[in-house]
């Protein structure tokens, strides 16, 4: 039935839009308002930033390969840890998810484009400038930001390098971009769904992005406020975070983490959505517990606002505060557990096959859960005093961000690659990429649990001899993982150039309106709203 609808669409497409194809050359990308073009721009940009941040990670791991100072001086090392964090969070993971949203939201809700296509162009094109400014600080006198990605005051105010002002403006730009992107996504989802797609029939990627976008517009202004206060403290003699003038440096941490904790979920909720599409497709079953998935995401988003101080248990907090933040943090394990249970139950007795997206999705479930458990350990206030600011924390958040958020993005790229390009990537190469990544990521980050528990602090260029073995293993893993992402680039380019043509429904178990479109998806799709049929919605 969907085939019929979609044939009709093709005709319309030819009748109405023969003169609306993409422009030629650079102008197409500079002035585009097409959600598919902008999605592509976001994805390539985030991949470029991923490589830049990855090079910084490899500088860090090279220095830590052996104890002692070998390659870089400590000042530069600090700039590397800071910029690695900032670029991976704001430049790689977040734009990649926005890129996925651009590609998928209109196609999955049956809309012709995003609600505000011109603002969409602006929200992307701000980003290269923001990161251009931020990366340029590394070449300035006094160096770039060196205060950690959390930029705690007064390290980022009184003791900051002069380039901190550029950093502040870069953060403002990133915030503006994210807010505009989110407004666009919410407006599209709320107003442009095809008739018949009620809220509880929306695909889970749409649900998770809707909630993520609300989180973004709620906390990005708070981040902007925090950096503006820093700017005032540095240049206009105010004392927001300066104790001598009556301010409080601890207040910076509260404001930062009030932004920072929801930010953590901004980077993982869309991943939950992606995984909720891939696992049912390759288990050839409908998703288990759709409604509970939606409620779980909503609860996680709500809880993210009231747990922030678990990042700062050691700052000096009354017992009641520690207990409150400990219990609310542990509460998050319940909706997260519901999600992991549902993914597992979806696979249960399914007719599973293990193509590359599925491999990444299963690895996501397993490794993200490991990261979740180490998070639970960190939530226990009394033991957090031991774990705080050690490599255990580094291991924890890399487990949720690399085999968590990043694996879900890679899985999404493989899964929707045929829809975007009309070609199939080479399955053998994809699987090889998966195994290299999977082995690399575990060799890199698993030993960091042990060095952290043994007391190795984070953000140091040198360490006692007892941590030498774990660090050497970790560095070897980092290089395996890093170079296997160059291989990912090769797999993608190979797929685009010489992949075999893909069918409209590239995966036989894949459901959703986007699979009713031909592959590659036409430049303009769903110019007339499609009919939403029961077999295409998950509920």
């Amino acid at each position: 039935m969907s085939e019929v609808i979609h044939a009709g669409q093709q005709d319309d497409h030819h009748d109405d839009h023969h003169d609306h194809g993409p422009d030629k050359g650079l102008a197409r990308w500079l002035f585009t308002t097409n959600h598919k073009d902008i999605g592509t721009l976001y994805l390539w940009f985030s991949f470029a930033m991923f490589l830049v941040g990855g090079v910084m990670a490899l500088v860090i791991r090279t220095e830590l390969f052996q104890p002692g100072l070998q390659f870089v001086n400590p000042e530069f090392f600090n700039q590397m840890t800071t910029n690695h964090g900032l670029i991976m969070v704001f430049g790689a993971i977040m734009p990649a998810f926005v890129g996925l949203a651009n590609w998928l939201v209109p196609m999955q809700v049956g809309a012709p484009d995003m609600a505000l296509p011109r603002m969409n162009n602006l929200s992307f094109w701000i980003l290269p400038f923001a990161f251009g400014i931020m990366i340029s600080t590394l070449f300035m006198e006094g160096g770039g930001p060196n205060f950690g990605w959390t930029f705690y005051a007064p390290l980022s105010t009184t003791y900051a390098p002069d380039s901190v002002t550029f950093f502040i403006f870069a953060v403002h730009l990133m915030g503006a971009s994210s807010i505009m992107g989110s407004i666009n996504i919410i407006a599209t989802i709320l107003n442009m769904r095809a008739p018949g797609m009620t809220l509880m029939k929306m695909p889970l990627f749409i649900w998770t992005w809707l909630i993520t976008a609300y989180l973004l517009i709620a906390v990005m202004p708070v981040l902007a406020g925090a950096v503006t206060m820093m700017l005032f403290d540095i240049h206009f003699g105010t004392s927001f975070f300066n104790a001598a003038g009556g301010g409080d440096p601890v207040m910076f941490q509260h404001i930062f983490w009030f932004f920072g904790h929801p930010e953590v979920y901004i980077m993982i909720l869309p991943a939950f959505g992606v995984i909720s599409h891939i696992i049912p497709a390759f288990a050839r079953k409908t998703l288990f517990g759709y409604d509970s998935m939606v409620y779980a995401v909503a609860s996680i988003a709500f809880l993210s606002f009231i747990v922030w101080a678990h990042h700062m248990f050691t700052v000096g907090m009354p017992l009641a505060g520690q207990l409150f933040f400990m219990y609310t943090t542990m509460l998050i394990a319940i909706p997260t557990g519901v999600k992991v249970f549902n993914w597992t139950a979806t696979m249960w007795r399914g007719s599973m096959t293990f193509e590359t997206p599925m491999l990444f999705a299963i690895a996501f479930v397993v490794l993200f859960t490991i990261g979740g458990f180490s998070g639970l350990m960190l939530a226990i206030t009394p033991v957090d005093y031991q774990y705080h600011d050690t490599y255990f924390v580094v291991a924890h958040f890399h487990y949720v961000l690399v085999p968590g958020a990043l694996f879900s993005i890679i899985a999404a790229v493989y899964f929707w690659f045929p829809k975007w390009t009309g070609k199939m990537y080479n399955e053998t190469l994809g699987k090889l990429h998966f195994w290299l990544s999977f082995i690399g990521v575990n060799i890199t980050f698993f030993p960091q649990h042990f060095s952290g528990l043994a007391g190795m602090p984070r953000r140091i260029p040198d360490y006692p001899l007892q941590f030498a073995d774990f660090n050497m293993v970790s560095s070897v893993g980092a290089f395996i993982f890093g170079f296997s992402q160059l291989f990912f680039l090769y797999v993608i380019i190979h797929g685009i150039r010489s992949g075999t043509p893909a069918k409209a429904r590239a995966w036989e178990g894949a459901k959703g309106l986007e699979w009713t479109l031909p592959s590659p998806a036409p430049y303009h799709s769903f110019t007339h709203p499609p009919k939403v049929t029961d077999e295409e919605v998950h509920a």
Partner: protein
Amino acid sequence: MTTNAQSSEIKRTVRKLCLIVLAMAAFAWALVPLYDLFCEITGLNGKTGGPYTYDPATTSPDTSRLVKVNFITNTNQGMVWDFWSEKGGVRVHPGELKEVNFYVRNTTDRVMVGQAIPSLVPVSATQYFHKTECFCFNQQILQPGEEMVMPMRFIVGRELPTNVQSINLSYALFDITEAMGDAVVTGG
């Protein structure tokens, strides 16, 4: 493409979302006074309050209890003055007025301005630690080589929770010469 009805719906949504953004931006700035207020009420950040008026007629010392008050002095952010207290600590009855002298010496050859910031633990005692006079209420302007005696008078409130047996009062001395500007230094 988008119909007229749809585009007015979109406009309405966007307007609402912009309001959320503005509200959250306002909230970020409101966090500053809210944080101060919260700390003032709960004493959570260990900042002791401003000048306290002491009426000896209505307050009698609670001789059944003795509380140890320890003093810690340190200098912060490259402050080069010497800063010390006459005693490391004193034992007081709750409700009893006590005076302790603190000293600063400007060891440099220029006029400097200092500001001491108090911090008290346990935080549950913050609200019951009253100061009738403290050098932290104002700034100190010292000529080169000048030394100054700074008395600090305090009363530990009788309502102090009984589980608090000792209080640590720490002062961090900051160099605020630059922030005060040249006018203050040359004028003083």
